[in-house]
């Protein structure tokens, strides 16, 4: 025989004693086989069955012996279920059948009070929200165009390097200042701004505050979730203005500024930007 630990035996005996209304000692004795087990004689008072239709509960079984007697008869109720009970699934299945009175013998002798608590519809516990996306295999549909783009870029770069010589002026000499002294082209827009405004504003506040802080924080400032250009006209306009402004300032700085940062025309006075030395020649 399996040796059951004492504390578990004690606990289950307490539960059994409570369920049957007997003393714990007796329950313990029964469980150990020392006395006859208590027979459970009484029926449960409340029985909850969710598939059984309600009519059977209202009419005790003997009532069905008399075929279709009165308004209380359950037979019509098979079509119209009792109020306050929502049962849609096969209501006639267990309803007493007046044509076959033999079946009544199988009806429960006990009076059963039953009610339908709820109807739970069958559905998955996890809801899938992703829509199928039209996709293609990376190989070859992405990698081949990518490879072509890389080859084209390589060819372009080698071609450019073969025909255009990178500038190399005289050796660096801190004592000889060229006029004008220009920054690399991507900073020339800033240098152009510096010629208009105070350096604190143009040289630092604009690039640092506008250029970096606002630029980085832009996705957090623009909370419009739309991506189509027609639904985000302000953002498109803002960026296009920035792009045009930066472009114009850079072109002015590169091509239209000569000695003393004075206005010059490249086709009259030549180009004062040494990075373009080998690019364009004006006689």
């Amino acid at each position, binding site marked *: 025989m399996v040796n059951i630990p004492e504390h578990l035996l004690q606990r289950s005996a307490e539960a059994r004693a409570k369920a049957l209304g007997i003393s714990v000692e007796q329950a313990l004795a029964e469980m150990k086989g020392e006395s006859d087990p208590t027979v459970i004689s009484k029926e449960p008072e409340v029985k909850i069955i969710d598939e059984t239709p309600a009519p059977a509960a209202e009419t005790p079984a003997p009532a069905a012996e008399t075929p279709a007697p009165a308004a209380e008869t359950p037979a019509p109720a098979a079509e119209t279920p009792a109020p306050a009970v929502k049962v849609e699934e096969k209501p006639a299945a267990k309803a007493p059948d007046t044509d076959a009175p033999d079946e009544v013998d199988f009806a429960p002798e006990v009076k059963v009070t039953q009610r339908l608590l709820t109807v739970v519809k069958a559905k998955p516990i996890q809801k899938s929200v992703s829509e199928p996306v039209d996709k293609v295999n990376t*190989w070859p549909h*992405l990698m081949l165009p990518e490879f072509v783009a*890389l080859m084209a870029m390589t060819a372009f770069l080698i071609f450019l*390097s073969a025909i255009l010589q990178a500038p190399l002026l005289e050796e*660096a000499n*801190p004592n000889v200042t060229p006029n004008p*002294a220009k920054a690399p082209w991507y900073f020339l827009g800033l240098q152009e701004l510096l010629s208009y405004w105070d350096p604190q504003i143009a040289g*630092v506040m604009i690039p640092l505050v506008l250029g970096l802080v606002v630029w980085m924080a832009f996705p957090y400032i623009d909370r419009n979730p739309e991506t189509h250009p027609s639904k985000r006209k302000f953002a498109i306009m803002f960026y296009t203005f920035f792009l045009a402004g930066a472009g114009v300032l850079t072109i002015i700085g590169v091509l239209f500024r000569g000695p003393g940062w004075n206005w010059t025309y490249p086709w009259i006075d030549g180009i004062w930007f040494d990075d373009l030395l080998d690019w364009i020649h004006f006689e």
Partner: protein
Amino acid sequence: MQKLSLRDRIKEARVSAGDSFRGGKLMSSIFRPGSPFRKGYVDSPRNRSYVVMNNVLYHLHPVKVKRHGVRLSYTLCLGGLSFFLFIVLTITGIWLMFYFRPTELAYVDIQTLQTSIAFGSLVRNMHRWGAHLMVLVVFLHMSRVFYHGAYKAPREFNWVIGVILLLLTLLLSFTGYLLPWDQLAIWAVTVGGNMAGYTPVIGAQAKFGLFAGLEATTATLLRFYVLHVLFLPFIIVIFMAVHFWRVRKDGGISGPL
């Protein structure tokens, strides 16, 4: 027995030689299953997936991408080209390092490179124009992302990383600008460094730190050299890794519009 023509016999011999090489132990050990270089590669969805999954370099890509994303007109491949230009610049840059000393000899080294070293001029040109091109392509990439609204949720943070990458690209280009040590280089950097001097509160310190002194000297040259060949590439690679990783994690390419 049917007699084969000479052309068919040559073809048969070529195919069988190719098969025995591609199916041999050497090729099978180099190329993982699904590679087009292995024997028996057939164009099937399974093998198309293996091509990407079983290769460490292609693994940057997902197995499948959205159909609209492979249209050339959608991205113009600008992000990929930025990365590719970075690789070209790394290769040519390493090559240039063999011939360059960041001292008062720098200018002579560039002259020697251009006149006495095979392909020296070409590689230097590629490095310089490639750098300008990279600034341009990164900027265009940013514009493309903006016009497509591709910085919107959930990609906000990747935009921030992208702006940092643009900044690092500009810094890399700017530090490289000084290295030829000619009049163009030293005065462009002087102008740029003076702009840093206008920073409120710490302007003088910022300028001093950038120049390693009060003005551009050979100490500045060494400082810019170390920043250009080691420090900034190191930083930018880390940010690029995060950038590419986030592209995948944020659901691949944005759109369609």
